[in-house]
């Protein structure tokens, strides 16, 4: 068979080129979108947006969302969801705030708060993994339970003022002094540091451990993973426990940041965390969540909130724009996947 090799090669490389562009766009479309957003705000607000201090601010603003989104990523690697993280964060805040008000030591309050998070996650894990309720239904149920518990424990009131020790509220506002840039004092917020630590731990767990690899296997094909020697039930359970603890950490960070505990103050975290994971998933060829990509999703949400607020856009309009951008990103990603 004699085909002209020259012609075939040309056609192939041309086609290959187009495929490569589609792939690049698919993988980095979200990143490009992020750069566009940053460029837009830099142009609109040249003085206040693009400077070190504002970026440090942004990291602090997204730090709490970052923790929840990072641990949510672990659950979503399994193709599961944890809808209860928002009310869980509120409830843990109330538990810790109540203990502090009643005079318990800071360490006890924080420790018990984390324990409550782990326990709630364990409940989710047992329901999903052993009783085999769909994660959507199971965590929707516990979402409501945690919400009710938070309201019941607090009596529907906010815990604030002298009840919250200054050590905790100072921590939420403080940071490590880095130096002076452009005449501004720059400190690295403690909350940002916590998020970085959580991020690194989650990255190591997902990308560098046997546990993480097995989670991805379960997410890819649960039956094949089980037959291939993965303890599916135990691992799913552990993922939900981790997610519960992430929510608890976020709940405590909120108390510290706001110097108060309100029975609904963490509720909004859940939807934004899931949105951040979805934004990150658009960057994966296989549509798998990865925690660094999730962080890009978190940053997109944070930058939008920061920039739009600086432009004095109404918060209602902000919501419309943010939602629209999420839908747009996922749409473009799935279109380029065809």
């Amino acid at each position: 068979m004699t085909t002209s090799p020259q012609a075939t090669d040309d056609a192939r490389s041309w086609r290959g080129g187009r495929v490569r562009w589609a792939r690049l766009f698919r993988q980095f479309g979200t990143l490009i979108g992020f750069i566009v957003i940053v460029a837009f705000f830099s142009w609109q607000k040249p003085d206040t947006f693009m400077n070190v201090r504002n970026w440090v601010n942004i990291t602090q603003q997204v730090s709490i969302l970052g923790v929840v989104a990072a641990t949510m990523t672990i659950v979503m690697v399994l193709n599961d969801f944890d809808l209860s993280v928002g009310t869980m964060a509120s409830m843990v805040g109330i538990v810790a705030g109540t203990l502090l008000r009643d005079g318990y030591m800071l360490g006890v309050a924080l420790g018990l708060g984390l324990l409550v998070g782990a326990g709630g996650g364990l409940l989710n894990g047992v329901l999903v993994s052993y009783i085999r309720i769909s994660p959507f239904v199971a965590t929707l149920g516990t979402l409501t339970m945690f919400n009710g518990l938070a309201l019941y424990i607090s009596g529907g009131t906010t815990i604030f003022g002298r009840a919250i020790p200054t050590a905790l509220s100072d921590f939420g506002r403080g940071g490590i002094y880095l130096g002076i840039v452009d005449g501004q004092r720059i400190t690295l917020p403690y909350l940002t540091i916590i998020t970085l630590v959580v991020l690194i731990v989650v990255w190591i767990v997902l990308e560098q451990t046997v546990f993480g690899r097995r989670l991805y296997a379960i997410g890819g094909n649960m039956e094949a993973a089980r037959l291939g020697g993965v303890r599916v039930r135990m691992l799913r359970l552990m993922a939900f426990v981790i997610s519960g603890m992430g929510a608890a950490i976020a709940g405590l960070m909120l108390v510290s940041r706001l110097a108060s505990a309100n029975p609904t103050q963490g509720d909004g975290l859940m939807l934004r965390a899931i949105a951040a994971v979805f934004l990150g998933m658009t960057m994966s060829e296989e549509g798998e969540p990865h925690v660094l990509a999730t962080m890009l999703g978190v940053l997109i949400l944070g930058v939008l909130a920061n920039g739009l607020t600086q432009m004095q856009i109404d918060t209602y309009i902000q919501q419309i724009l943010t939602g629209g951008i999420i839908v747009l990103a996922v749409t473009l990603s799935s279109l380029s996947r065809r």
Partner: protein
Amino acid sequence: MTMVHPPPTPAPAESTLLLHITGANKAYHGIPALVDASLTLRAGEVHALIGENGAGKSTLIKLMAGVLSADSIAMAVRGQPVNFREARDAFDAGLRFIHQELNAVPTLSVAENVFLNQRYPTRAGVFVHWRRLHRQTRDVLAQLGITHLAPGQIMARLSPGDQMLVKIASAFVDANPSAAGERAVAIYVMDEPTAALSTSEAARLFEVIDRLRASGCAILYVTHRLDEIFQLADRVTVLRDGRVVDCVPIEGTTAAGLIRMMTGRDLQQVYPPRGPDVQVSERVLLDVRELTTRAIHGVSFQLYENEILGVAGLSGAGRTELLRALIRADRVLAGTVSLNGAALQARSPAEAWDQGMAYVPEERRSQGLVLSRSISDNITLPHLRHLARRGTFLNHGRERRTSAEMSEAVRLKAEGVTQATWQLSGGNQQKTVFARAFARSPQILLLDEPTRGVDVGAKFDIYTLIRKINAQGTGIIMVSSDLPELIGMCDRILILRDGALVHTVQTEALTENELLTLCYGELSDDNQPASH
């Protein structure tokens, strides 16, 4: 640009040319899958399409179905040039596709599945006219000689073979019977329809195919089973590496000739012999006593060191379930299993793997592989802890080396161990599952249909591998519907019927007929094994 086409087979004047394809080209990511392929289908013929996995059969079929667009192709149906942009176009042109995978809706009835791609007959244009739907379904089934299925039966309760017959029936329903004259369905493409069928179910399918041929349809029949070709086909087109090697009438060809065309080499012996110094020893490796699960009842047997033990039986006899009980994928209700004299304590597949068992499941895509992940990830999955640093942290280098070594051992053809497994051909996917099973030199290897849907060349590779691992002392239990394969590879064969062990036979001097007879047990008149 000059292209020399392979000489097209001239269609004889007396039979109508239903489909004519020339110059079909398709490449994935620059890698050619089809090069200048051609195909002709005449009215009243069964045309076999064969080739190794990755030879381009699936690609050609997808082009015909309009689900994949060619880089270049010239296609004509009944002499009219056509250009299929989507599946509907192929459907409207009278092409029907029957795939090996059952994509029926298990919760719906037979009738609903038969009419799945059609508008249901309605009353007042809105409400489903159930009685008419059932009557039409009965008519379609009757036309195909399927009388044992009722339209109201729920799909999930049928055997895989019956489900396949329902799917085939659905391919016979024409959207618009009134316009049947000109646009009647004329071309059926069947992609390994017998893969999940028992012998008698396959025989029923062959009758249906004969009926279709007699009515002037053309059938493109894709298979890996050469015996079926000689039984059914009028002509055969052989693909190799995306090119048409030849298109020949079945008279005058031999199985050896076809194998030579597919592989480009001679395969003297289909089953590699046992090594001269490998003897089944007296030592009992696995002792199974009264093993009972929901599907199998009181099965007892021994597996000796260096032995290959076959498991035969009709579909539904409990063959797969026996392996699932041993790997602990199904709950064991009673009985004991001892490995090397010690009781097997495993309660999950994870623990069974850790105690030296390895498993190649029946369905490599749904049960074997995590398709989104790489070859390396799939091979190392059960062995991660052993490859990791301190049992916890992934050792990427070691994983890569191990999986590269294992890929080479199973002669896997891929771009590298980081390639995603969904991109591999069926044979290479199966080799990936094998590489995983071999990676830690298991004591017991459980194989469920190890060569199903695998081409001739890869089959031989897999047989050679089974011999090799067996020579190292691994005991092998192998379930297969391919009886010659069981006789050719195994030392003894267990025969299951209705979940119980009914016979154990030595394979020496055993014939396929004897084995099949044992599988069926006492024969009643309406339950004769197909005599082909």
